[in-house]
């Protein structure tokens, strides 16, 4: 019995030492993670000349006359960068999600619509877009 009790005490202490080590490690990592640099997005974009859908850096810009909408280029499934095919479909090269020009899912696996950003026009140059927050 005494041996069993000794085992129990020793094992508990072992578990405790593990917990004391692991918990701060996890919190430490988590704290540092929040300060890691994230992918930089360009904050100013040049408005393309003609109507249609345009891939600009990390963004998808859809222009229809005066109407301009700006979406994130990251697929909402697992984050791959979307591309345009020759029929102007927005396709994910990794798992085949397809989005329409309103940012809505046309074909899975993605479920959520693309993130859309607020935009404003630069005061000096009406062709310069300033990217705002996600809507």
């Amino acid at each position, binding site marked *: 019995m005494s041996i069993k009790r000794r085992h129990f005490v020793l094992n508990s202490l072992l578990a405790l030492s593990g917990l004391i080590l692991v918990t701060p490690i996890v919190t430490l990592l988590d704290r540092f993670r929040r300060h*890691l640099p*994230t992918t930089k997005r360009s904050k100013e974009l040049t408005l*393309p000349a003609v*109507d249609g859908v345009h891939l600009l850096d990390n963004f998808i810009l859809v222009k229809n006359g005066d109407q301009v909408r700006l979406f994130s280029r990251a697929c909402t499934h697992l984050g791959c960068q979307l*591309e345009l*095919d020759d029929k102007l479909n927005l396709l*994910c090269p*990794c798992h*085949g999600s397809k989005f329409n020009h309103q940012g809505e899912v046309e074909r899975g*696996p993605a479920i959520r619509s693309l993130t859309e950003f607020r935009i404003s026009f630069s005061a000096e140059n009406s062709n310069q877009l300033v990217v705002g927050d996600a809507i």
Partner: protein
Amino acid sequence: MRSNTQEPSSSLTKLFDRWNSVLPSWGVIALALFVLVVISGIALIIPYDLNNPDDSLQLIAIFSFEGIFFRSLHYWSATLLLLTTFIHSIEHLSRGHDSRLSWATWLRVVLLILVILFLMITGYILKGDSEGELARTILNGLLATLPWLGRTLQSLLFGIEGYQTIYLHHAATATIIATIFIVEHGRRLWPSTKGWLIAFFTTLLLTLFLPISVFVRQPLLVKGPWYFLGVQELLHWARNPLVVVIAMALPVIILIWLPKMEKGVARWCKISLVTLLPIYLLLSGFALFMRGDGWQLNSFTHLKRYQMFGGISIYQTGKTDRSNNSVPVIRGRREGCINCHHKVTGMVPAHNPKVIGCASCHLGNTLSLVKDVAHQGLVLIPGNLDIAGSTCGTTGCHGEIVNRVTKSLMGTGRGIVRANRKLFGEQVKEHPSLNESLSKLGSSNADNHLRQMCQRCHLEYPKNELGAIDENSRGGGCLACHLNYSPSLNKNAHPSLSIKVSNNHCFGCHSRSGRISTSFEGWHESKLEPTEAISKSINHRLVGKSKRVFIKKHADLHHQAGMSCIDCHTATETMGDGNLYSHQREQLEVACQDCHLKGRANSISWSELTAEDRKILLIRYKRELTERRFLTTKKNGRALINAFVAPSREIRLEGKISRKLHLLKAPGGSCQNSQTGHAALSCSSCHSSWVPQCISCHTQQDKEGRWVEYSGDFLAAPPTLGVKIGNDGLRQIVPVAPGMIMTLNQNRRDLGRSNIDNLSQDGSFHRRFVQVSPHTTIKKGRSCTSCHCSPLALGLGQGVLSKGSEGEWSFTPEYGTLRDGLPADSWTSLFDKKMDDLYMKMPLRPLNQVEQRRVLRYCTK
């Protein structure tokens, strides 16, 4: 812990027994491969640059065949290690070793497989290219589905940016853990000699014959490493990625728990696991072979582009001094082309090879200094539209324009395709589509006809030979308009690709059919034989290889003033604006009134121009033209970038190439305050001096199915007047010419024994007049009599129009009647109610009875 019970020997164990009796066990081979992985990995430490991994691999590919060797050795030994590890694991399971080891030891064995997988995927990410980056994005995306720890695991295992974390794990943490586990598991540090030799020479063969190159990813398709292809396929199907994470974790959990299970359950689990493996391999094979762009089903066709093995030839590396890091970085990649072709001159500044390299346009293998290797996959003529998406239209260059051109009328010839199909009585959908193109013709009679007669006159038709664009040229994608050869072409001179689009560029195609180019320059095609043309006569011109004879006529006023085609025609109307149109008039945007203004000019400032317009002006003028206000089109408000209101308030047009300044005059007094009845006249109905007209032709298929055309007379005369009813219901008088007065015979027949008159008796008869833009502008309008007393202007054709003593008009045609009862060159007949009824609902019609009488009332001949 269960007792050491012997598993019943299965056919699988017998198979392994047989292997082991001759060759070293899979475990020993795996150990040998691990040693090989470590050695080749150590060899890569120095050439691999953690801060710029992709670039360091490119430098290896260019300069170091040893580097290519060790990279390939590292790749193949690792790949074989993973394979042998799986086989070794199956052997273990089949022999029931799981039940013999202590659970903690077994746990480490299972973890070892995971560590090897982790080493593989980190190696894949460490390539540092966009493919590797996407793999990291996906793995981090998968980890993000895990609650609480997910985000932390992302930063701990793969890192978010940079390669420090991953490199540390790949070269140290995971390798050390794997070494400890392997040594503990195998109880040996070195493989047997036999095991080593088998592992070494198998890897060596693969390394020598299938060395890996630096992979260039296709934008629309990314495939992970082969062992993760099955997961990628599953992720395509699973709406929630967590399901896939659980599905991947499940076999691992089962494996770990195997020794703790009841014997029956354990056996069942093992059979399931071993069965899952081939299913997973099938899934991976499906993903590898059957998935194309956008992960769509596209069997095999994309495999050619999905190349990661360079072939034995890539071992030939440059003999350049390797210490001299001389291969330039162009658009983010090393480009060896320049090392040989640095003397090339002749390009415009934006296409300077020092800026965009050679491969941006000509593709090929940039990571080699050996001619034959570097020229693999080279595109000699990159402007053709079938390849332009990867050359001129590549990301960051003219992608948007290439996209527009491929949809435009000039790109596809869609207008001709649709009109021709309608003529042949084939079905044409109401809305135009991308498939209606001269390069995507089917096998119908209409399409065969076009294939033989018209297919070359559109931009999708490829340019197949080097050389300047001349009057024989057709097609050629971007080159058709933008290729310019310099007269002093030496060995190192490259033709330039510029925005200097001269009339000669348009001439090859536009000297045919409507013959706009020739009319503009004042040349009318005749039926004279080349031998009949007086040699060196200024009144005759021989055009093209077929030596068509043209006769001098009145040239367009704008041509006489030194203007060229592109001085009026804009970039968006020629290259398209991204919309699918089915008719030229829909795509055209300029009109006479845009420059010859009646009232105030609609104009915009420099800052209101589109980015593309400003870019073109900056290329031409090298400065911002803020002092100008640019005129805009009435149709869609797009800027005419060379027509502007100068600071002096004068309205001017500047030649895009000539830089010659022209004063833009307002329409004459009689145009501005038109007399009664003249308000509906379009500018060109009055200001055109002549238009080429072809009277009566016949198109017939011969016995072999070839289409043969017979034409009637060619005529240069002032245009006929037609009435166009616009979409807004407004009536306008426009110039009109015979589009086709022809018999179309779709039956094959022996042409040798027939003559044209006989042929005209069968087949379908068509009489169509079309609105034309003659491009033979004259300053002074047509005379009163040229409209009011002309049977041609009225649409009656040539002949004598006379007034009887009773004041009644009669017409004697010059040509005999055709099958529809009208003379060969007529559109309508005089005062004929039947004709009024026939044309009543058409958007373009001849003058009706009332209008004919009204016109003739003012004939004062």
